[in-house]
């Protein structure tokens, strides 16, 4: 293996096994070790340029060792599994992994788009807003220039390339409930988890990385005499064994929502070479916690200096972790640049792992002796009171030029010294990772002592612990973890025995004691190109330009420069950017404020958020006769949640031919149609009649037992809400039917009045839509058909008059038969228990065989009712009143009902309202759906005077017809207009008719 792989031994390569793995990057094969991340394996193989930046396409290398990585973005896998923009630092290596660099052409080492750098000064913040306007021409021409430029800009922008091949994997969800959620399993999280677990409450611990322990995994410290890593492994094993504790690794808590609802993503199979297909790729956890301990640690931030984006420059603690956890040297010779003590710890650990640390450059002059010793331990030259002036090398680091630095003025001295190195490990201090609490609206507070934002006061039940709360260092982490645990327990209401409620002394810690507060140095301004946001190429100069142009509020800074808007959401750049803006504005950072963090914490696969909905967007509702329709060759389509038959096509038949044949068969003989989808509501109680009387426009109090009545419902604003028939079974028991689409909302409407408006009425409402299968039997021969099969009841006109109800039996199935007609023909609706629905259908079909019964679908159902002038969904469009649809006769003036008062408003009686009419085609042309009624020619149609609502070919009238809403339509019967349909390229001469086209007297259905 390459020179970058260290000599693996105790304490070096703690994350690695001894198993070698092969993987590929940009088509070339490499080897890594089980336990590597893609980033550590690439570094170990000596690859330094991993990606290209967003704007200038500058070469970039690995900058961090975690989910905050801005630079090392790659595309994984291929085909439908293609995943762009994945951070190499987060990818666990497995055998056969295929990764590619992105945002480069032709290769990551030579990218033509890097010419953008040459125009760097012109590509400053706000560049796009100031140009590309093109010549000032009228109308569309004015935008055309930008439209052309935009095509190129869009292609140059973007990062990786997505795919249009569907993702073959699946996703799942888990709903979890716990007393306490612990986010993060480092020292603070572990301490909290131990404490709360002991009290017996239900605990969930979420850990972002593959194994629990957080920073303990690479800590050089000893706890209770054991190396921290081993100690934490023991603790975790103990916790895992407890019944009341779940530890979820590879699980990132992404969102913190109201009432302590947390959203986490578990990466279930992403790290596996061989995936079990029954196992989901990722699982979304919706966790409801009574309280939470948030121990998400802190993110190291860099300092900004000229040339700070070169491959080979990375965060100091990340460099340390590559050596300790992954046995990988981040460079052959590492220079450390820091403004705080943790940079020195990194240097010491790097050296201990076998990495050459050539120099430690610290902006501070005054450095504790105990810290200096660390530098001496690693035999680095020490340059205190110094800073980097520039970086040598174009595609990597050859060395750094340093100069003396004045901490008070922020100025570099005139001196300079060159230090040879190929890696700069930089530490600019630590930013607590309080993203989750900020999502909740908690306002962060700037801590001048720690030079960091802290989470601020909780708005919900959470308690911060460890570095996230500004409690840096192991001992503080343990103590704050325990404290947070006790507060969280108090939230859950679990009583703690006094003894147990004491904070213990915690484990015995043997380790470095350092000061975590950095010097307040964020930028070394030496005039060269210094990057604040590495991924979006936002420079310190861009921040100052934004200030110059008045974009000084943090939100303006972010939006104008795009600082913090890249895929890392500024995890390593926000604070530095604010500090530079604060300096430019001559304001303290505290007054500048910070932007709000928004969920998710890190980018989340959208399939995982959808969870089990991927591939199952919505449940399908099927009627009991569904399989029969499918077997009969009916074309099924989604009608809201329901699947319904459109037509039962014979071989070679079009949909239009089929519905015309079905309609004719009904009008001439008999047909049956599945009406099981109608909403059905059981209305019972001593006040049921009164209740119905209040919700319908027409009278229901006097509906006789054994009869049905058609009713209209309004909204309170007087517009039509729904319609249907209601059947009275006995004195106090009704069955209300609603439209298919209206079933749910009618139920809620009724419940609202029953519960909130008239709670004194004794009315019970129950949805029975699923209890009953319904079949309408329609046509002049429908009674004949029923007579063949019905037993135990009389279906003659006398026994079952129009709107009458009877109980009977068909093929041993108890049925209810109502004599209702939607088609205008003699017709019956036959209802039976849903589990008998298919048997009923078969019985009716076989009873009708000699009568040539046909099954008919929605298209014929619709044609029949259009011919009859019955309104349905397209006419009940939420903007029509009973008066508009010719239903004034249904509105009782003798009672008050829902909507009765506002229906009186003057506007509703205006004569020029859109009113229901029918229109018929005069020249045989088809009236297509969605036509408007106009007076003019195809080329100059004039304004719309109305529109068609439901169109069909009418076999009865022998022409195309439509119901329509026409301005003042009632008085315009006989008028000739055009049904214009420019989007369907049609313009049809029509005549306006009454909407009662077929059998207006109703003789047929009453016959």
């Amino acid at each position: 293996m390459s020179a970058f792989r260290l000599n693996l031994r105790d304490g070096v390569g703690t994350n690695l096994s001894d198993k070698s793995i092969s993987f590929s990057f940009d088509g070339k094969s490499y080897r890594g070790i089980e336990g590597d991340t893609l980033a550590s394996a690439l570094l170990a193989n000596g690859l330094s340029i991993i990606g290209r930046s967003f704007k200038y396409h500058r070469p970039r290398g690995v900058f961090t060792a975690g989910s905050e990585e801005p630079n090392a973005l790659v595309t994984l896998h291929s085909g439908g599994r293609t995943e762009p923009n994945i951070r190499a630092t987060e990818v666990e290596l497995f055998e056969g992994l295929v990764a590619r660099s992105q945002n480069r052409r032709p290769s990551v080492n030579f990218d033509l788009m890097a010419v953008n750098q040459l125009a760097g000064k012109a590509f400053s913040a706000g560049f796009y807003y100031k140009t590309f306007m093109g010549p000032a021409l009228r109308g569309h021409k004015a935008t055309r220039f930008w439209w052309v430029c935009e095509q190129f800009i869009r292609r140059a922008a973007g990062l990786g390339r997505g795919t249009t091949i569907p993702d073959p994997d699946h996703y799942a969800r888990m709903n979890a409930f716990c007393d306490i959620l612990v986010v993060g399993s480092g020292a603070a999280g572990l301490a909290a988890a131990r404490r709360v677990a002991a009290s017996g409450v239900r605990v969930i611990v979420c850990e972002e990385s593959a194994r629990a322990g957080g920073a303990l995994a690479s800590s050089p410290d000893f706890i209770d005499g054991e190396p921290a890593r081993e100690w934490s492994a023991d603790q975790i094993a103990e916790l895992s064994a407890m019944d009341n504790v779940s530890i979820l690794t590879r699980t990132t808590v992404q969102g913190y929502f109201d009432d302590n609802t947390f959203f986490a993503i578990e990466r279930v199979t992403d790290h596996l070479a061989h995936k079990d297909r029954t196992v989901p790729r990722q699982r979304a956890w919706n966790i409801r916690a009574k309280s939470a301990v948030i121990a998400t640690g802190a993110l190291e931030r860099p300092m900004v200096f000229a040339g700070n984006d070169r491959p080979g420059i990375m965060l100091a603690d990340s460099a340390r972790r590559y050596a300790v956890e992954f046995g990988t040297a981040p460079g052959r010779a590492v220079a450390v640049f820091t403004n705080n003590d943790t940079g020195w710890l990194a240097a010491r650990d790097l050296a201990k792992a076998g990495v050459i640390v050539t120099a430690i450059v610290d902006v501070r002059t005054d450095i504790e002796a105990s810290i200096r010793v660390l530098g001496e331990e690693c035999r680095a030259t020490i340059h205190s009171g110094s800073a980097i002036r520039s970086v040598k090398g174009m595609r990597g680091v050859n060395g750094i030029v340093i100069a003396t630095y004045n901490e008070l003025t922020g100025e570099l001295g005139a001196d300079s010294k060159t230090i040879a190195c190929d890696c700069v490990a930089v530490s600019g201090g630590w930013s607590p990772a309080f993203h989750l609490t900020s999502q909740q609206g908690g306002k962060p507070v700037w801590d001048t002592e720690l030079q960091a934002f802290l989470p601020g006061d909780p708005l919900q039940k959470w308690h911060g612990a460890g570095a996230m709360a500004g409690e840096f260092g192991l001992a503080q982490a343990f103590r704050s973890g325990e404290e947070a645990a006790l507060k969280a327990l108090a939230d859950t209401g679990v009583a703690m025995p006094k003894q147990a409620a004491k904070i213990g002394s915690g484990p015995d810690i043997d380790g470095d004691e350092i000061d975590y507060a950095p010097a307040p140095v964020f930028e070394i301004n030496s005039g060269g190109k210094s990057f604040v946001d590495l991924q979006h190429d936002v420079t310190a100069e861009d921040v100052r330009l934004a200030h110059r142009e008045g974009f000084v509020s943090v939100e303006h800074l972010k939006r104008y420069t795009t600082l913090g808007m890249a895929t890392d959401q500024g995890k390593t750049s926000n604070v530095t950017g604010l500090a530079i803006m604060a300096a430019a504005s001559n304001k303290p950072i505290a007054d500048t404020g910070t932007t709000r963090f928004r969920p998710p914490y890190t980018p989340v696969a959208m399939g995982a958020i959808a969870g089990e909905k991927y591939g199952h967007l919505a449940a399908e509702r099927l009627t009991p006769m569904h399989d029969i329709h499918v077997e009969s060759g009916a074309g099924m389509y989604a009608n809201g949640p329901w699947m319904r038959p459109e037509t039962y096509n014979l071989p070679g038949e079009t949909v239009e031919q089929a519905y015309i044949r079905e309609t004719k068969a009904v009008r001439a003989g008999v047909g049956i149609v599945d009406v099981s989808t109608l909403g059905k509501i059981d209305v019972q109680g001593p006040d049921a009649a009164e209740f119905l009387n209040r919700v319908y426009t027409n009278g229901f109090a006097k509906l006789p037992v054994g009869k049905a009545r058609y009713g209209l419902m309004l909204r309170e604003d007087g517009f039509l809400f729904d319609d249907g028939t209601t059947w009275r079974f006995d004195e106090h028991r009704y069955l209300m039917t609603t439209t298919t689409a209206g079933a749910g909302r009618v139920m809620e409407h009724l419940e609202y009045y029953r519960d909130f408006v008239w709670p004194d009425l004794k009315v019970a409402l129950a949805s029975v839509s699923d209890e009953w299968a319904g079949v309408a039997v329609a046509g002049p021969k429908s009674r004949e058909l029923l007579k063949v099969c019905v037993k135990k009841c009389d279906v003659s006109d006398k026994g079952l008059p129009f709107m009458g109800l009877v109980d009977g039996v068909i093929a041993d199935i108890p049925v209810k038969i109502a004599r209702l007609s939607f088609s205008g023909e003699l017709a019956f609706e036959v209802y039976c228990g849903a589990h008998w629905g298919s048997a009923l259908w078969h019985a009716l079909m076989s009873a009708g065989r000699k009568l040539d019964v046909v099954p008919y679908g929605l298209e014929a159902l619709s044609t029949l009712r259009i011919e009859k002038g019955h309104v349905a969904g397209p006419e009940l469009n939420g903007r029509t009143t009973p008066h508009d649809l010719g239903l004034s006769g249904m509105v009782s003036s003798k009672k008050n009902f829902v909507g009765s008062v506002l229906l009186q408003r003057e506007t509703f009686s205006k004569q020029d309202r859109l009113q229901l009419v029918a229109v018929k085609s005069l020249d045989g042309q088809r009236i297509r759906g969605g036509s408007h009624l106009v007076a003019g020619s195809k080329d100059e149609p004039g304004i719309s005077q109305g529109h068609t609502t439901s169109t069909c070919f009418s076999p009865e009238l022998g022409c195309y017809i439509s119901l329509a809403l026409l301005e003042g339509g009632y008085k315009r019967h006989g008028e000739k207009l055009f049904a214009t349909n420019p989007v369907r390229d049609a313009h049809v001469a029509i005549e306006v008719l009454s909407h009662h086209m077929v059998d207006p007297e109703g003789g047929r259905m009453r016959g």
Partner: protein
Amino acid sequence: MRYSAFAILKNALRGNRDWVPAWRKPEPRSTYDVIIVGGGGHGLSTAFYLASVHGITNVAVIEKGYLGSGNVGRNTTIVRSNYRLTPNSGFYEKSMELWRELSHALNYNVMFSPRGVLNLAHTPGQMDTHAERGNQMRLMGVQSELLDRDQVARLNPGLDVSGSARFPVHGGLLQPDAGNARHDAVAWGYARAADQLGVDILENTEVVGFLKDGERIAGVEVMRNGEPMEIRAAKTAVAVAGNTGRVMKMAGVDKLPIETTVLQAFVSESIKPIIPTVTTFGAGHLYVSQSDKGGLVFGGNIDYYNSYAQRGNLPVWEEVTGELIAMFPAFARLRLLRCWGGVMDMSMDGSPIIATGPLPGMYLNAGWCYGGFKATPASGWCFAHTIANDKAHRLNEAFTLERFKDGNPIDELGAGPTPWYH
């Protein structure tokens, strides 16, 4: 300073040191002709058109936070005029007309990108309602095309148009000249242009009360840098979107036909161009487009409850991503980067209010629901006309406050007086 490619080059050569603030940060005067409460898109465009069209330049725009901190910077940037009802189609087409020339009018590239807005249809019935709307658009002079399934598939290669989809695509309605614009640039462009015409933009200035001369509104009381002060004007206009209830209460208007709810918006990580148009799902509620930066920008329903919180909850995430990947199953592996919330002034019919009143000396611009961004130019244009003439323009004469009680709602969805369903 006039913006141009030349100006950029010239400044670049001088190290970008000569740029000046895009708009001034003036101290308030004690009296203005017009005060506009709300420094969002609508307030700023109103100021611009008052100054540029009506010659009224003694105008203050008062913004409690940073300029454009409300919905103008939180929306999904869609610009369209594909409406069904006449008052809406006329008004929004005026907006389109202004959008097309906006970058020039403002000397600021608002990146208006007419890439097309496509509404999918999933049943034959939905094709008919789309046709009905498309025809209305044509009759009103708006471009529209009804596409069949194959045409939709050619336009959007990743779209699932298979028959096995839960809601198979039958076709769609395309407004080819609709599209997107860069939301922040709209606020900044209007601010800069209005400022150059003499309008004072007062940021970080919060209205805490209204001044009255008898019944008449005579200006506002504000807090600025922690200090109270009074600013007087003959005309006081309010354009504060989700904060309408809050602000109007200070003027003594306790109730309005508006409820404030939160709408979440989402953006994915950046990828190379993959969807060319703005596309909406017809079997649920979802709209998606791809920004110039490469992120998929999308949104869906509001969270159904009153909220001023500018953040929402998880169920909408699940609903919206579920619909997005039902349309584009290949996007299941793309990653959501960020979600944010804006507060919507949902009116009782889903349509806006641009009117004089409700008190003398006052003008109200509100009720934008989801639709405020695309309306920005026409809203300001009509509101400026209404303020200048004390009378609505023909284009906004239907957008009154009285229409609800008069029984003349402009209800595109027919959902009735339930604001959270619009």
